[in-house]
């Protein structure tokens, strides 16, 4: 380890905006003169709204000045705004709670309502068993019918109830293939065009993986997956796929071959975004706890948009991952309330993690000659224990020194869990991007945790006592019940299942290993291609920007119900 000079401090602008007129390097300040909760426009809005609701329903509601710790005052120090990292958009912390942020909701909706379904099995059934001809023309016709049926419309029986298109306008199906000739024959409205959406090298690699097969990227209506759950997606999709095949290929509605098509659409040919969970966290498929980190890194598309900046690509995964896994999964599916948002936002606000990570990139370049702006598997550093130790030690010490040198930044990340997650993420990302090895990245994470704990004699909340102090021992293990490669770990991995402030960062560490190599995908090329689709409501290449849009109330989500409720 050897400290390097880095004159640019990415967090300084945010600190100057947040702590206006104050010296960000001063150890002292004034407190108790901020006007309590009323210093925050959002809190004032909440209080005003609550008074109206109380009058209307006759039941008391939001009353922080009375209810917070028995009437004891909140807001004795500055209630800060936050810059969503890299966006230049400053928001109130409240606007980053997923309940208050339509973009965050849509991010998860778009994942939960998606499955990828192969067409090869169905086409084989049609051709070999039923003797039907399958051509580009029949496929286009089938897709036309499917985009009628998937939102909830009938195709075979008459006199059926149907859904209002205005309520399910986000529902559609497109296809993709690695066969250029076949792709040329698919109507552009139905095609995810790999060549157009990905950089040339990534496109070639992805098409090679897909080959001549064809896959459907299915997105059922947001309003359906919200009313039901993630397990609904493949079932809803399979039903409409089966009916569309019947209609498109003039099949008998009751013949046994329909069962083959259904089985293919429901089971044999479907890729879920997430696997089912065991009883203690019981959820069906397509729920957050079952998303493998490798899959999640493929869902996020930032490496497609920023192929020469693996740090940026990874940081987008951090933002998306902490939002989904901390705020929604652990923070609401598995727990409840508000605290988890405060943990998660630390990793994607005020450019603090960004600064620490780019310090790691500079260190990689300075000491190991690894040019992160030209990702290439041939230039990654061999993932030895010494290399991981060196990278994680230096990046962690630098992060601690930055917090120490800028007391306003320490105040920004006022909780130890926030600091622990951010510092360890920077270490893990540096190790994974630099070595191209996800497990090396995870190993760097745990050295950071030990070093942080010893340096400041504190770490995060109780959970860190378990996960982060025994993590060294499982980070490289591949033996069953002990370990797994990073790509296949996930929020339900035994040692990762209980602790906020980790899972999103782990996902990014896994992604970083591939972004640092310039890989086209991390784990599943089909999912990578599926979420490149610009027709999705949420732009998965820019999750942090989308969250910022949600925070300032400029994001337009799906799931609109105003068509069927009284005007307000």
């Amino acid at each position, binding site marked *: *380890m050897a*400290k390097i000079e880095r004159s640019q401090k990415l967090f300084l602008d945010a600190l100057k905006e947040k702590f206006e007129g104050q010296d960000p*390097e*001063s*150890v*002292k*300040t*004034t*407190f*108790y003169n901020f006007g309590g909760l009323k210093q925050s426009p959002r809190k004032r809005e909440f209080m005003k709204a609550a008074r109206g609701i109380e009058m209307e329903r006759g039941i008391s509601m939001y009353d922080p000045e009375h209810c917070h*710790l028995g009437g*004891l*005052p*909140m807001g*004795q*120090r500055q209630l800060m705004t936050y810059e969503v990292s890299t966006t230049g958009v400053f928001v109130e912390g409240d606007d980053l709670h997923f309940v208050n942020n339509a973009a965050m909701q849509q991010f998860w909706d778009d994942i939960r309502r998606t499955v990828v379904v192969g067409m090869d099995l169905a086409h084989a059934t049609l051709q070999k068993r039923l003797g039907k001809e399958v051509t580009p023309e029949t496929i286009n016709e089938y897709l036309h019918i499917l985009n009628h049926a998937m939102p909830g419309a009938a195709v075979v029986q008459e006199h059926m109830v149907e859904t209002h298109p205005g309520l399910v306008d986000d529902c559609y199906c497109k296809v993709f293939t690695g066969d250029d000739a076949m792709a040329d024959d698919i109507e552009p409205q139905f095609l995810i065009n790999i060549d157009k959406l990905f950089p040339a090298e990534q496109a070639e690699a992805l098409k090679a993986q897909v080959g001549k097969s064809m896959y459907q990227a299915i997105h059922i209506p947001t309003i359906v997956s919200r009313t039901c759950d993630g397990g609904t997606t493949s079932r809803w999709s399979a039903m409409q796929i089966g009916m569309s095949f019947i209609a498109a290929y003039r099949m008998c509605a009751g013949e046994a071959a329909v069962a083959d098509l259904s089985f293919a659409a429901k089971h044999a040919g479907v890729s879920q975004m997430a696997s089912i969970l065991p009883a203690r966290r019981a959820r069906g498929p397509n729920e957050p706890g079952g998303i493998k980190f490798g899959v999640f890194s493929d869902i996020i598309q930032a490496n497609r948009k920023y192929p020469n900046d693996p740090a940026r690509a990874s940081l987008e995964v951090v933002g998306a991952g902490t939002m989904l896994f901390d705020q929604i999964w652990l923070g609401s599916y598995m727990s409840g309330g508000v605290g988890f948002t405060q943990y998660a936002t630390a990793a994607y606000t005020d450019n603090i993690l960004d600064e620490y990570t780019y310090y790691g990139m500079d260190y990689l370049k300075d000491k190991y000659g690894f040019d992160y702006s030209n990702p290439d598997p041939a230039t990654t550093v061999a993932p030895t*224990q010494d290399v991981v*130790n060196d990278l994680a*030690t230096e990046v962690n*010490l630098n992060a*601690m*020194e930055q917090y*120490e*040198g800028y*007391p*306003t930044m*320490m*105040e920004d*990340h*006022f*909780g*130890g*869990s926030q*600091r*622990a997650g951010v510092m360890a993420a920077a270490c893990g990302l540096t190790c994974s991007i630099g070595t191209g090895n996800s497990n090396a990245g995870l*190993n760097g994470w*745990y*050295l950071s945790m*030990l*070093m942080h*704990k010893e*340096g*400041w*004699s*504190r*770490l*995060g*909340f*109780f959970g860190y*006592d378990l996960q982060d102090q*025994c993590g*060294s*021992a*499982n*980070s*490289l*293990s*591949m033996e069953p019940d*002990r*370990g797994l490669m990073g790509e296949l770990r996930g929020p339900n991995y035994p040692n990762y299942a209980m602790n906020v402030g980790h899972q999103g960062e782990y996902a990014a560490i896994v992604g970083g290993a591939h972004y640092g190599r310039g890989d086209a995908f991390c784990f599943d090329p089909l999912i990578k291609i599926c979420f490149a689709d610009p027709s999705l409501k949420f732009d998965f290449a820019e999750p942090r920007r989308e969250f910022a849009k949600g925070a300032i109330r400029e994001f337009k989500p799906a799931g609109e119900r105003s068509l069927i409720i009284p005007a307000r």
Partner: protein
Amino acid sequence: MAYKPQYGPGTSVVAENRRRQMNPDIELEKVRDVTDEDVVLILGHRAPGSAYPTAHPPLAEQQEPDCPIRKIVEATPGAKAGDRVRYIQFVDSMYNGPSQPYQRTYTECYRFRGIDPGTLSGRQIVECRERDLEGYAKWLIETEMFEPALTSIRGATVHGHSLRLAEDGLMFDMLQRCVVGDEGVVTYVKDQIGEPLDRAVSLGKPLDDTWVKAHTTIFHSLVGSSYRDDEEYIEYIVRIHSLRTKYGFMPVEE
């Protein structure tokens, strides 16, 4: 060969202070005096002079099973009397507070009996039988484990630990449990959970920068000792991490 605790690596003053606090053979400097009643008031668990509420009858009045462990481990006075389990919780400023969360836990484990410590980033709690607690709390307040401006006794709202200090040098406390009086003396006007006290409790003047820097157990490159400069400390952490990694990956001797 008898086990000899090493208490931790490091060549810095921080490392040495950590070893001093942990080592029960070392008598820590007594910096201030507080009365038993002062301690009871700050803790806020019972009124001064009132009897200790009990969770069970005294052990001597119970039919204790014939248990070899009970013969080896003598019950603490609080356990013998059947006291409730209560707590004291500290918040330690990262700006050279004399003790810090894990450091407190390690120290208490070496020096106290019958305790249940909990360690978080902003606070450290120790729970035990009430009369034992009062004795331990007195020691924790009177010795160099405590500094009036940089150490705080709080049951809730602990985020002062990482915040800048107030202009008067005190760590931020949302509930302002203590204030600096006219003579510069730090005085508790609320108990640890934030209930106003009938009588204020004085814990003396804040100690000067030289003292806190010489007695702190946290590294801090801006106001104290740089972690990076204690190379031995860093080396040991890396060694521990490497060994854990190695034996987790391949848990056999080569």
